[in-house]
């Protein structure tokens, strides 16, 4: 062909070349279409297969889920029953313990109250006794003071009476004799040194 080229007109050469390129293009295009078609078929097959598999798996999964759920429910129920039983047992024990504690508390309270009342009573009695004793002592002291005061007054009255009476009743000589008697006593005591 190359050897003919110098002899063929340029337009023909270009026409042939274009034709060849067109043929090549078409061929390529058809190949691409074919590949596209095949790819679509493969994708469709794969989708179909996938749908099948998915459907199968979904059914299986549902079955498994149902079974697991049922099992879990059963276990939970059992657990709840155990828990309720345990709670019931614990509650009963607690109630007994609380009752016991309350009883102990009441007993202790009664004892403490009784002790406190006894103690208070004793203290009250003791306090009253002390008050009575103090009052008696106060009365006694007051009586003694009053008696002492009366005694003092009696003596004071006696002295005053004697003072008034003796001044009038004693003669001058008797008065003077008493003065010398006092002076004799002072002399005996060496009052004036």
């Amino acid at each position, binding site marked *: 062909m190359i050897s003919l080229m110098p002899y063929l007109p340029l337009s023909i050469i270009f026409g042939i070349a274009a034709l060849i390129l067109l043929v090549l293009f078409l061929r390529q295009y058809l190949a691409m279409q074919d590949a596209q078609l095949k790819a679509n078929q493969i994708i469709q097959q794969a989708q179909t297969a996938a749908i099948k598999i998915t459907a199968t798996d979904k059914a299986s999964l549902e079955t498994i889920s149902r079974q697991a759920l049922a099992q879990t429910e059963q276990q939970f129920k059992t657990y709840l029953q155990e828990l309720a039983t345990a709670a019931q047992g614990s509650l009963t024990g607690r109630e007994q313990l609380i009752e016991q504690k309350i009883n102990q508390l009441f007993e202790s309270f009664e004892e403490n109250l009784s002790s406190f009342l006894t103690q208070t009573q004793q203290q009250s009695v003791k306090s009253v006794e002390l008050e009575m004793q103090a009052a008696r002592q106060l009365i006694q002291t007051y009586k003694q003071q009053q008696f002492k005061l009366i*005694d003092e007054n*009696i*003596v004071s009255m*006696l*002295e005053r009476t*004697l*003072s008034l009476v*003796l*001044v009038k009743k*004693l003669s*001058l000589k008797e*008065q*003077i004799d*008493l*003065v*010398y*008697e*006092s*002076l004799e*006593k*002072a*002399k005996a*005591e060496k*009052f*004036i040194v």
Partner: protein
Amino acid sequence: MSNILTTFLKETYYQGQISHRLQVLRSFLLKHFFNASQVQISQLDSDWLKSLGDDFLKNFTQQAGTSGSQLNVYQVLEKLEKDVKKLPTLTVYLPFEMPDEEKNKLGLYLRTNFKKDLIFEIKLDPDLIGGAALSWKGVHKDYSLRERIDQNHDKVLSSLKSFST
């Protein structure tokens, strides 16, 4: 104690008497030396002045001696008054008024039995019951019946109570 003071106190015993006699002596001497006093001297006081003796009056002169050893009448009287004030005084508390005559007797008794230069004063204490209370140099003691009653307080009281029961 000076002779003048001894002679002055010979028959003078208590405070009122001392004051009065000092006044009498002063009046007498001023009249005697200066004819200055117009006070009338009673017979009793005149007798007392005579009892002092002539020698006592010789202690007083109108003027002081030139040597300063002899004092004039004013100076002697002043000294006498000071000396009298220095003497300790016994205070006698009595429940009655004692006549002057008895005071002189009492003074004589005190000088005989206690101190020969003792002077005293009498104070009236109506609360005393017979007897006397004495004060000497700041110490007071009741020697009357009141003190005896106080000392025998309980006995007196029990005696009185025995009458009531």
